[in-house]
């Protein structure tokens, strides 16, 4: 297993390298620059600024410089948030996004899996239709609609929870629920399908034939098989949730890293965009690896050594 993990990590290095290279040249190819504002800067002053940020050097030289710095763990200064380095911004924002994403993921997993199993056990009955209906609703209503509605309902009209901001556990409730809702829907549907399939499998039928109680059949024999598709889905979902949601962070005013990618891209903050790309790429690689390991643990038929 250790060999497998190390091989996978080594395999990820060229992937990350390609992502960094493509992203670097793509953002530079976009017209405009970080200092092209509505109030243009005097061309002579612009020269000073370009020199200060190495933007006066040829592009290939900037690329080599950037790559060299990244290898030493230096993501550079932010162009648009000049009091902070990109590393500073991640140090402040990443824990917030991870906290928000992890809670949303946990909530989605608990509620989604439970609803999925209930729907599967009550297949084609009222509870099943209700879960499928709620899941469809959850997937189709975008969170830029859900977030303001929840904020208005619980924050402004009822006054039960803060309408926005970050800092106390109360501030987490609405954004976590908003972020979790579509995931609950997806996980519920995945779990439902996989559970129905597992319930029809030979080993579950055998367990039932032995007269084992439903609870034991479901928890011990069915869930183990049913959870596999959910586990595969969790990799990319976790990477996306833990690196922040632009919409939820913007609407609730949460200081996570999700907004940096969009803010950075719009403002042509090259280093901030690159930093965000690298962090997201690392998360995707790590979570896919964790999913593969979880698969091996849950399903012994998967033999990575081969």
């Amino acid at each position, binding site marked *: 297993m250790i060999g497998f993990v190390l091989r996978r990590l080594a395999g990820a290095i060229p992937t990350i390298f390609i992502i960094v290279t493509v992203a670097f040249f793509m953002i530079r190819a*976009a*017209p*405009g*620059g970080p*200092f*092209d*504002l*509505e*109030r*243009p*800067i*005097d*061309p*002579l*002053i612009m020269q*000073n*600024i370009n*020199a*200060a940020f190495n933007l006066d050097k040829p592009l290939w030289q900037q690329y080599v410089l950037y790559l060299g710095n990244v290898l030493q763990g230096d993501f550079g200064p932010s162009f648009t*948030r*000049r*009091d*902070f380095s990109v590393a500073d911004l991640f140090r*402040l*924002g990443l824990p917030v996004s991870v906290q928000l994403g992890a809670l949303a993921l946990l909530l989605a997993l*608990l*509620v989604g899996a*439970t609803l999925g199993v*209930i729907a599967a056990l009550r297949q084609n009955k009222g509870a099943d239709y209700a879960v499928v209906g709620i899941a469809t609703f959850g997937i189709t209503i975008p969170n830029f609609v859900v977030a*303001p509605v929840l*904020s*208005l309902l619980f*924050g*402004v009209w009822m*006054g*039960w*929870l*803060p*309408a*926005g*901001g*970050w*800092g*106390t*556990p*109360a*501030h*987490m*409730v609405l954004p976590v629920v908003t972020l979790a809702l579509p995931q609950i829907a997806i996980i519920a549907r995945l779990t439902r399908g996989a559970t129905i399939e597992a319930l029809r499998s030979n080993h579950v039928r055998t367990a039932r034939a032995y007269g084992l109680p439903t609870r034991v059949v479901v928890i011990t024999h069915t869930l183990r098989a049913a959870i596999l598709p959910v586990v595969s889905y969790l990799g990319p979902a976790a990477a996306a949730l833990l690196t922040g949601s632009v919409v939820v*962070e*913007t*609407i*609730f*005013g*949460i*200081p*996570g890293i999700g*907004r940096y990618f969009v803010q950075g891209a*719009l403002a*042509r903050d090259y280093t901030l965009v690159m930093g965000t790309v690298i962090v997201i790429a690392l998360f995707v690689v790590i979570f896919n690896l964790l999913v593969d390991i979880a698969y091996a643990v849950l399903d012994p038929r998967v033999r990575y050594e081969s």
Partner: protein
Amino acid sequence: MIKTMLKAGALSVALATALGVAGGPALAQEVVYNRGNDTDPSSLDQHKTSTVAEAHILRDLYEGLVVYDNEAEVVPGAAESWEVTEDGTVYTFKLREDARWSNGDPVTAQDFVFALRRIQDPATAAGYANILYPIANAEAINTGDMPKEELGARAIDDKTLEITLEQATPYFVELLTHQTGLPLHQASVEEHGDAFTRPENIVTNGAYTLESFVPNDRIVLRKNENFHDAENVQIDVVNYIPFEERATCVRRFEAGEVQSCSDLPSEQIDELRARLGDQVRVAPYLGTYYLPVKTTKDVLGDPRVREAMSLAIDRVFLAEEIWQGTMVPAYSLVPPGTNNYVETPPQLSYAEDDILDREDRAKELLAEAGIEEGELTVDLRYNTSENNRNTMTAVSEMLRNIGIETTITEMEGATYFNYLREDGEFDVARAGWIGDYNDPQNFLFLYESDNLGFNYPRWSNEEYDALMERAEQETDLQARAEILAEAERLFLENVPAIPILFYTSKALVSPNLEGWEDNIMNVHGTRFLSLQQ
């Protein structure tokens, strides 16, 4: 199982609510003002900033030689008085004896000299250094042709500062209210370099000092007990909260979580007025929204064609219907209420005429220019924004009324202004200008021939340039105002850019927040406010 989960959920919500509420009482003794701001500052280094959102914060942190009060009147700040020589080129400021930095050090004339030299130093790469080019040798220093020690600013003694200008500049004192004119604590900047803005390093001389700065969350300012007027500063803590989505600020205002919003969604203004009444503040603002026309293009180079387009634009419709009364119809480049100007500023001759008569006149002008109906097609270009899109769509319809066909092109912000500046091939674009200082020169200089940064139409008029040059030399304010008015008259006859709207500032202000006066500069220093909690 579902019941158990619901119970657990309700319990955790209740617990979380209780914990959230529990965060408050410890701070109950302090007056805390949660202040909505447009966005986070790009920096708290005054020499690396340029926007209004940054100015709000810096105005609380630092005190310049002069400051705006809550009605945007220029009043003494760190300087208690000043004198100017008869030729208007040498200013001598007397600093107040009790001015101190947040660490207790006295504020000295040298602190101002240090800051003024630093902003012109090319190594600082200050984007707004040119605002202070009226100071002798500033431009030469900024372009690396002269050492910074040659700047026309010197400390005669600890409390006396002398600033020498290149030539008389009547708006110079007001210019010093801008963030580029704020002082710096020399010792801490020298010790910490660019990191002097960090909360643990920063030393300020304003009513507040920086406690913390978490991007996208809040900037916390705490009352500076060393501030000379600290006893009259009534708000203890200011939390500047950035709201890129204006509607989010409105929701938090209604939930009582913020006491003011610095901007509002224009498209919701009627609904907000109905719901929040007097808490919605819409006030005239020193800014003009205009349409530059590329005068170097064949047909558009003809002033009759530009005037025809200007005639056809129904500004009242744009202001009232498209912008829901959050803009004011504009018939001049310089906004009303601008200081140092003539009593009756010039405006477009047809400002009062009926739109149908104007359309007839526009058609005549096009015919005189040899353009038949449907023969001319112009491209209307704008930077992404719903209101800009709606404005251009309406303008397109208005031009069609006089037989001009149109196409509309949208461009993304970062690219757009670069395109205009770099002599892009546009026909008609949209642009806006908010005055940095309250003087007509700050609008009229945009169209000087050599101002390639802002003169998007590339309009070149020798007479106009000569008038602007004369105004620069004129030390008598009244005579100067007449010359500038003459320049604006010439501009309006030629309309290289069609002024269509004046900006307003839009804010939400809680009735608990006292001292907030609407003003043309949209300045609201927290030291002049008080909050009932």
